[in-house]
């Protein structure tokens, strides 16, 4: 399991290749990259991501460990950034490796669902006119947990 909480950017392609190289024998690798989305019509200057330093790493490791317990996985990678990010920048990445694709896909979806509502991050949108707004949690994201 590899879990990294960082301010620095990362190259999803390079991360994906490194991850795959460490998982010989895995027949399936699934990667997901989350990117800062501009608001409709444009005008997003930045997304500020706050986190709870003492809790974040442990919370992410717990989610990854649960995925490893539930599915047959060769390895799991989670990278999540914090700080001020521009539209189009990578926010986070999840990768799973397994012998078979179903395990890799399901484990990746499970981790994404839990990262959304159980990892201590908060997003604030900074707009062109100087206004800023905290992104509200969606009921759909909370509901998504019930399927697991």
């Amino acid at each position, binding site marked *: 399991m590899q879990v990294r909480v960082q301010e620095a950017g990362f190259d999803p392609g390079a991360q994906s290749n490194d991850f795959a190289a460490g998982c010989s024998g895995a027949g399936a690798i699934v990667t997901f990259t*989350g990117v800062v989305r501009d608001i409709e019509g444009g005008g997003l200057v930045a997304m500020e991501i*706050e986190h*709870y330093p*003492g*809790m974040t790493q*442990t919370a992410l490791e717990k989610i990854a460990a649960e995925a490893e317990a539930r599915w047959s996985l060769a390895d799991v990678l989670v990278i*999540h950034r914090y700080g001020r990010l521009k539209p189009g920048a990578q*926010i*986070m990445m999840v990768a799973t490796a397994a012998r078979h694709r179903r395990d890799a896909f399901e484990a990746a979806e499970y981790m*994404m669902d839990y*990262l*959304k*509502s*159980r*990892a*201590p*991050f*908060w*997003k*604030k949108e900074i707009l062109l006119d100087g206004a800023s707004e*905290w*992104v*509200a*949690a969606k009921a759909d994201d*909370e509901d998504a947990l019930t399927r697991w």
Partner: protein
Amino acid sequence: MDIVYFAWVRERIGLAREEVETSAATVADLVTELSGREERYAAAFADLSALRVALDQELSDFDAPLVGVREVAFFPPMTGG
């Protein structure tokens, strides 16, 4: 005991961290105590359904006892991913 605040809770209260002396038995008691202090606390804690709490960096709930707890965190629902 240390209390930490995140996101709009931090902004509304105007503090990221503070140390408090309290004999509150549960998180809910602590919330009542803080809300009685000043209007900014009362405003931040007005709707508990919009808040989450962590005790010593583990998610918990407002009924939880505070015995032995060193750090209480209040924050809005998380928006990771």
